């Protein structure tokens, strides 16, 4: 039995051992971060240290970091910002943005998958209402990096606020919240090897946010409830590791590109989305006509490789994933797309394992090329 190839980091990353140790240690230490005694103060110190690490990861001020239960919660909450009458989202946002504001105006993307900035400018001009724009930094399915700095500039020129879902980008590429200029940003711990169930919403001006949860004064009074200290500590360590490992993460592009070359060698008609664009170095989304997404995911799973048909959140559908549909990809291609996402555990052997399994599926269905 060979070992499995885990190639689904955009769904969740394996927890880093440093994180596991830190979480275990925090659980042993205990303490309520709101207590006045020494145990409480120690827990508080651990939380604040983690807050600093998360802020540093994306070039933000620690005072703006609000810990949440997930990236989804962070996105939901950002879009509930006070005094906003109109929301503009890109067509390729995550479900946690799209579902949070079904009333949002949708800004299209180009066939390449980039937010159409001309369209955004027109949408911003169309209305005098107080507006917030929500555009992700990197797409979870294709890995395509969006022109967030330019979009933020457009939004601000029009007097609009800007929220950025950076769940897939933070810890994978350098992110500088101040340079981007965004007003708020959503992050998640488990995408970078931290614990599941921890996220962060970073706000330039936290006082603009309504309360998420009522009760005690935790998280600047916005999110009541005893902090998930072990989870937050784990997130801090994961952020620290991710920042230190950004160069290594960038080098994953070599493995990713090699994988794509293998795929194209086996099937020259394979379509690779976002190739040549600024993409997350770990993400490959490609489609092979005639080889359905479901068969690829199942067949590779049985062969020991974990990949995804799309966002884990939307798996189980039969229509073309909306991210590809927004790029104008027809069903015959869209229903045959899979996502491979690499990370800190990935080795060339994982790529070889994937390619061996994929070639078997390919040859069985489409014949040897």
């Amino acid at each position, binding site marked *: 039995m060979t070992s499995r190839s885990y190639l689904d980091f955009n769904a969740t990353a394996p927890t880093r051992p440093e994180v596991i140790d830190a979480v275990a240690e925090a659980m042993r230490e205990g303490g309520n971060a709101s207590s006045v005694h020494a145990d409480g103060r120690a827990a508080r110190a651990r939380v604040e240290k983690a807050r600093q690490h998360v802020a540093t990861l994306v070039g933000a001020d620690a005072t703006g970091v609000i810990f949440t239960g997930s990236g989804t919660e962070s996105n939901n909450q950002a879009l509930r910002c006070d005094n906003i009458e109109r929301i503009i989202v890109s067509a390729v946002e995550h479900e946690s943005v799209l579902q949070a504001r079904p009333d949002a105006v949708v800004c299209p993307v180009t066939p390449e998958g980039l937010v159409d900035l001309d369209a955004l400018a027109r949408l911003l001009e169309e209305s005098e209402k107080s507006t917030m724009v929500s555009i992700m930094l990197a797409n979870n399915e294709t890995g395509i990096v969006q022109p967030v700095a330019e979009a933020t500039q457009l939004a601000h020129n029009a007097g609009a606020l800007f929220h950025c879902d950076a769940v897939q980008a933070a810890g994978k590429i350098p992110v500088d919240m101040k340079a981007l200029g965004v007003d708020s940003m959503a992050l998640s711990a488990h995408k970078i090897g931290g614990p599941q169930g921890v996220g962060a919403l970073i706000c330039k001006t936290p006082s603009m946010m309504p309360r998420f949860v009522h009760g005690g004064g935790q998280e600047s009074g916005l999110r009541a409830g005893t902090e998930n200290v072990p989870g937050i500590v784990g997130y801090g360590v994961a952020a620290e590791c991710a920042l230190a490992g950004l160069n290594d993460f960038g080098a994953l592009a070599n493995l990713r590109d090699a994988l794509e070359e293998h795929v194209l060698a086996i099937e020259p008609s394979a379509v690779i989305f976002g190739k040549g664009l600024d993409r997350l170095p770990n993400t490959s989304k490609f489609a092979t006509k005639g080889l359905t997404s*479901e068969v690829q995911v199942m*067949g590779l799973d*049985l062969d020991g490789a974990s990949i995804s048909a799309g966002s884990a959140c939307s798996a*189980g559908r039969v229509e073309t994933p909306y991210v590809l549909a927004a790029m104008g990809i027809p069903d015959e291609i869209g229903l045959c797309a899979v996502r491979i996402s690499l990370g800190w555990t990935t080795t060339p052997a994982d790529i070889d394992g994937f390619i061996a399994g994929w070639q078997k*599926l390919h040859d*069985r269905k489409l014949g040897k090329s």
Partner: protein
Amino acid sequence: MNTLVTNKAPADTRIVVAMSGGVDSSVTAALLAEQGYDVVGVTLQLYDHGAAVSRKGACCAGQDIADAGRVAESIGIPHYVLNYESRFREEVIDVFADAYVRGETPIPCVLCNQTVKFRDLLGVAHDLGADALATGHYIRRVETEGGVELHRAADESKDQSYFLFATTGEQLDYLRFPLGELTKDETRKLASRFDLPVAAKPDSQDICFVPQGRYADVVLKIRPDAAKAGDIVDLDGNVLGQHDGIIHYTIGQRRGLHLDAAEEALYVIRIDPDAKQVIVGPREALAITTVHLNNVNWLGGDITVGKVIECEVKVRSMRPPVVASVRLTGDGAATVDLAAAEHGVAPGQACVFYDGERVLGGGWIQREKSAIEAA
């Protein structure tokens, strides 16, 4: 020993099992896993289970998908859910509704087997490199020197051959039915022995996507204009009463006609969708001795058009087989002459041919005039 696929060790033999979440397919998967096969469980999500989540006794609803997952977990096999909702809607539910609108009595289970199960799921099993697709149907697949044959289940009370007549020879080559030799009782005992989470689950009864057997509700939801009222007439065309839509009637039906004037017992003899008429008459008028079929599937080996085959046929799932002669007339059609008249032969139902235990095939019953009407 590999009893399913020859020339291969069980561990090297991949079998995809269609798991509905019910007892039968769960035992099928558990049996094959115990025998050492490389078993892969697949459950089809066939319709929006929101409305049917809490239903007992039908396959494939949301709870059943979860049950299939729990069973797979308990026997230690991989399990996947394929979302076939849209094609099931198009190829089974819509076709079912349209058949009622045409005054026919459809059998959606056959369509389901013909499309999503033995075409699409079978294709996926092929793509996954499986050697066979196994289901929990009560039917037997018998390998002989002359080829693979389809036989009735050992447990006559559970026999599902009527619903599987349309299985093609090519499909039959690839299919396996490990429960065909078992009684339901034995299956239940196996479920207990395997300690399956569904061991005590009730059997499925009705059509999976029809809640509480109220098929007319489903038809009306899909074809809202199908509930046009019309006349109930006798064989001579005299109006005896009114009905609120032909979809509420099936050939041979006696109850629910609400005809005050009728002194003798009256049955639905025929349904005329164009005139929106339900034609009623005495039981004798139901008698049919000749049945015309189309889309015949022949599993009885080499045959020439025009040759008459003496066999037994079933014209409804719950009827015992009766002696008949079948003559294939080309283009997938056949004429069946029944040795004794059958009552309540409904267009849209299947006529399935048997040679003793063996299933020779079958076809779809076309609209007829009864013997009395034709006279």
